[in-house]
């Protein structure tokens, strides 16, 4: 069977289950006595096992199977939830995740899980972990079935299917044994599912057997029917079909029954609930479908084309000045902005997807560093464009690691400072206007101003004289300078040369900004501001010489016209006084090397743009107006052009470049 079509679903669902396992494991760690949590984990592991066995990912299936056994033992109170158990389970989840990732990357999901399986096995048997011995055949009993295969047989019995062993003997005169084997298997596969064959199928196909072979299978058909069908293949001398007796120990079958009962009673509960409160049930049945992101991207591209054409229509309507046409175009404009909203919401996914892997990460980091840390997450339901979600994970990981490593102090230090031993990192996300805010705040030691300055001077980022005049927020901003790390020792967690400058660059490439505030002894807060969507943005069109450029509104503070006499000079740089601030004045014509001379005027048309809390004033020739534009890349051939972040197609079909104000402000 071609499984490819199911692969996407498999990947999505296994991720969800792994995530669920992770979350429940964390809960279990805090509340080891709570058996209902173990049940939740068990269910996820169980589903995962079933799915991966169906898809043919055997390593995944066998590891989840072993996990299931341990979980079951916990449920039966045969095994205590100790740190060792939790760690082993977490380790298994790591392996599972790695396997799923390998499958996503197009691999076969194979992985050497022998060690961890042994470890789990030891836990299940109630022993301390023993060194690995050559007991790999341990799980295989006399009938040649391993434990996993036997468990499948057990389950099939539960489902009312019949397990059989079929012994087929071919005629001695048979020449093309492989061909017969092939035909027999063809017949069998129509009737039943093959669990095991002795010798193995590959050996059978290479005729590495005498004249008999045995197949273990499960089927809903009766023995007699199977026997008849197989006997019809020519050159088959004899077929013996016997019912297979599951040899599992009584203990195991009781366990299975217990699970079944448990699940049943829960189902019943759910049913009862449904009868009493039908409205609740319908609300839970939120209808969703999974759509490939490529299709949404395609839809977005089509819509972008539409926006370009809309611009063209608007321009035409203005030219022709026909009332009916203008009305229709205006209506279309309204409709298409509704359409845009609808489309954008479709691409939105909750940031939970990124957040939910952090509790695990913080747990292990804190453990490694001997710190006690409580991670509080809120606003996980905040939605962000899918493209941003894909990109924001790494910067957040970096910032969180930073908070764990440099922010939160060791427990002793904290008690000395009169704080609780357990530090708190809060991760908050919320909407405001057209932006998303993500804040990471810790109640650690705060940023040491002197240490930052000292380091910055050592690394030649600033000089001593200037350092004395710097305000706190300016000092903190130095953390984002490249090649900066304030930790005394380089640790595994952070401070490997790649610093916060990478985080900053990434966030800026997403059109966002990052700021840091800190109070000595009280904690540090990183605040990230991101635009809601990337590909369609509001911009102001301006001209310089014969050329038209678009400046994203998110960068613009104000557009003003000032008399030339108000321009001043400081350190060989033209500046203006903008609301009491001295702002450098740049001629866009010069920066962009536009040909020709500027018109002689008594005034400057100026667009004040900002990057973080830094401003710059750009001299332009004319303001054209505000417009929704579609961001299009310039392509790989022209990547990293100075001060240009992309291009857009205007209503008249011409291409106009989009200014990247980050490059203009130094």
């Amino acid at each position, binding site marked *: 069977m071609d499984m490819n079509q199911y692969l996407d679903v498999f990947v999505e669902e296994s991720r969800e289950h792994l995530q669920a396992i992770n979350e429940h494991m964390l809960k279990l760690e805090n509340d080891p006595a709570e058996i209902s949590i173990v049940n939740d984990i068990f269910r996820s592991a169980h589903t995962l096992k079933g799915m991966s066995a169906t898809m043919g990912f055997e390593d995944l299936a066998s590891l989840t199977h072993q996990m299931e056994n341990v979980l079951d033992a916990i449920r039966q109170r045969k095994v205590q939830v100790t740190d060792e158990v939790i760690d082993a389970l977490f380790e298994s989840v790591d392996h599972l995740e790695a396997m799923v990732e390998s499958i996503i990357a197009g691999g076969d999901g194979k992985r050497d899980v022998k060690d961890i399986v042994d470890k789990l096995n030891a836990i299940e048997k109630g022993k301390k972990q023993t060194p690995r011995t050559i007991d790999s055949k341990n799980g295989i009993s006399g009938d040649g079935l391993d434990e996993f295969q036997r468990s499948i047989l057990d389950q099939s019995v539960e489902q009312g299917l019949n397990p059989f062993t079929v012994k087929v003997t071919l005629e001695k005169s048979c020449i093309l044994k492989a061909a017969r084997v092939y035909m027999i298997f063809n017949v069998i596969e129509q009737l039943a599912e093959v669990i095991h064959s002795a010798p193995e199928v590959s050996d059978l196909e290479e005729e590495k057997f005498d004249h008999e072979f045995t197949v273990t299978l499960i089927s809903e058909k009766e023995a007699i029917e199977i026997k008849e069908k197989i006997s019809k293949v020519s050159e088959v001398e004899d077929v013996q079909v016997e019912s297979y007796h599951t040899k599992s120990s009584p203990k195991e079958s009781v366990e299975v029954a217990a699970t079944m009962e448990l699940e049943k009673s829960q189902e019943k509960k759910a049913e009862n609930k449904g009868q009493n409160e039908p409205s609740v049930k319908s609300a839970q049945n939120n209808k969703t479908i999974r759509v490939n992101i490529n299709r949404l991207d395609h839809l977005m591209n089509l819509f972008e084309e539409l926006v370009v054409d809309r611009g063209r229509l608007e321009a035409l309507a203005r030219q022709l000045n026909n009332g009916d046409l203008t009305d229709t175009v205006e209506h279309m404009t309204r409709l298409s902005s509704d359409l845009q909203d609808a489309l954008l919401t479709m691409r939105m996914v909750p940031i939970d997807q990124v957040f939910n892997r952090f509790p695990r990460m913080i747990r292990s980091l804190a453990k490694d560093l001997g710190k006690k840390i409580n991670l509080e997450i809120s606003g996980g339901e905040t939605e962000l464009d899918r493209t941003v979600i894909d990109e924001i994970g790494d910067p957040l990981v970096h910032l969180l690691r930073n908070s764990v490593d440099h922010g939160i102090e060791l427990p002793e230090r904290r008690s000395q400072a009169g704080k609780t031993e357990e530090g708190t990192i809060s991760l908050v996300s919320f909407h405001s206007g057209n932006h998303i805010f993500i804040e990471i705040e810790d109640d650690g030691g705060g940023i040491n101003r002197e240490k930052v300055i000292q380091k910055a001077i050592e690394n030649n980022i600033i000089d001593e004289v200037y350092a004395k005049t710097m305000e706190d927020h300016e000092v903190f901003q130095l953390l984002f300078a490249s090649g900066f790390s304030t930790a005394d020792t380089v640790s595994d967690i952070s401070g490997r040369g790649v610093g916060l400058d990478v985080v900053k660059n990434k966030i800026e490439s997403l059109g966002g900004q990052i700021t840091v505030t800190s109070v000595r002894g009280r904690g540090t807060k990183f605040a990230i501001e991101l635009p809601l969507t990337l590909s369609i943005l509001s911009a102001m069109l301006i001209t310089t010489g014969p050329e038209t450029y678009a400046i994203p509104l998110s960068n613009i503070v104000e557009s003003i016209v000032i008399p030339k006499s108000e321009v001043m000079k400081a350190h060989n740089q033209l500046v203006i006084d903008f609301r009491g601030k001295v702002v450098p004045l740049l001629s866009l014509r010069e920066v962009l*090397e536009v040909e020709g001379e500027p018109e002689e005027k008594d005034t400057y048309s100026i667009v004040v743009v900002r990057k973080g809390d830094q401003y710059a004033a750009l001299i332009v020739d004319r303001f054209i107006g505000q417009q929704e534009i579609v961001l*299009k890349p*310039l*392509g790989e*051939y*022209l990547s990293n*052009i100075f001060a240009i972040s992309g*291009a857009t197609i205007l209503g008249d079909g011409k291409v106009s470049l989009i200014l990247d104000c980050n490059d203009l402000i130094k």
Partner: protein
Amino acid sequence: MSEMKTVETEMKAIVFQLLDEEYGVDVHQVRSIERIQEITRVPRTPSFVKGVINLRGIVTPIIDLRSRFDLVETTYTDETRIVIVNVNDLEVGMIVDSANDVIDVPADSVEPPPKVVGGIEAEYLDGVAKLEKRLLILLNLERVLNPEEIITLRQFKEKSE
């Protein structure tokens, strides 16, 4: 087998003119041939990068091939064409004097390029095809459209500033 052989020993080439020479690129690398249209200049790029055009909704970079090879630049005419090529997923338009022919180039007619031909250095060439009455210079587009060269040029420029 005989069919295989024809495939191996022959290629179809789009022929275009630059100055007085005829050049050829593999037809598989050519997406389309366009008339000259309004080009939006992209600031701070090498002079042979003329800018970008709107090619049916896709913003496509355009280079002037004369300028790329340091040949004398000329004004664009009705004959001027933009050959849109795709090499390693880079889509770039090349401005040429004219383009109007597709011909078969038998492999045995191709010779390694001389050091300089038509003012173009050998490193940008795949070879020279000697056909009955014409000489066709075959371009190595991967070298001609190497984006790293733009970066090197830009760095050079920034340093000299």
